């Protein structure tokens, strides 16, 4: 693709990321089912990725060096790796929780509450 194509304002990408973040946050805060909370969390992580993508471009044009421009993408790469690790552990946790109580409703796991 050639760079002379009509550009996308990078703020649009940020706005999209903000909207997705809010959707994810509502999901995390308003659901009680463990798996659903987890899914919403994945959405929030991805909205953060999108913000990184947007900033990678925002600062790529001005501050010149190519390595600098890649930093945003490298960050997304690491976030994806961390998200994968988090999903594996989290889902294993839900399986263990389900074994114990036959439910993954997070409100039912309150024995640490005073």
């Amino acid at each position, binding site marked *: 693709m050639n760079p002379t194509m009509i550009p996308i*304002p990078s703020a649009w990408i*940020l706005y*999209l990321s903000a909207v*997705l973040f809010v959707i994810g*946050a509502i999901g995390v805060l308003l659901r009680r089912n463990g798996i*659903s909370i987890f899914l919403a969390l994945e959405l929030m992580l991805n909205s953060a990725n999108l913000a990184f993508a947007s900033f990678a471009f925002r600062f790529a044009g001005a501050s010149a060096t190519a390595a600098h421009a890649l930093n945003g993408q490298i960050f997304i790469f690491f976030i994806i*790796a961390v998200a994968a690790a988090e999903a594996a552990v989290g889902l294993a946790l839900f*399986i263990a929780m389900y074994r114990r109580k036959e439910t993954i409703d997070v409100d039912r796991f309150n024995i640490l509450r005073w």
Partner: protein
Amino acid sequence: MVTYVFLAAAALAIVFGILAIAHRSPIINVLSLVVVFFALAAIYAVLGMDFLAAIQLIVYAGAVLVLFLFVIMLLNIRSVDRLGSGRRLQAILGALTSIAIGAAVVVAIATLTPAQGAVAPGSQGGTAFPIGRSLMTTHLLPFELVSLLLVAALVGALVLARKETR
């Protein structure tokens, strides 16, 4: 052209994002999230981050969400609670907080300097070569740490999900 692709992907991401957190069937939730991730991959692709788009699909759609489906099927969860079906106050406060955070972010974005704000799509080296080089030189330490994290997660997941034998 690029703008239209972006707008279509953004609309898709928002609609299916809402579906992903609001629908009562967990399978529909996961599948909607697949569509969202696909839309995000499309955005990365039009921005010229080809490698990232592929990784996004392989890791998220190919592994993480399949794992979700696997667990949902294993636990046989046919439907989940409605959005905000918990305590009324908790739901209202949660929604308000989220929207407040969102509003704050939007205001912050609006006040950003618009100067270098335009994205020329495809102007970046988004292919595997520069990213690989960068991971092996500048970002070598975090890269190695991530591998450590993945091993820890693997062992942790095994220990947690193991059947308790007594």
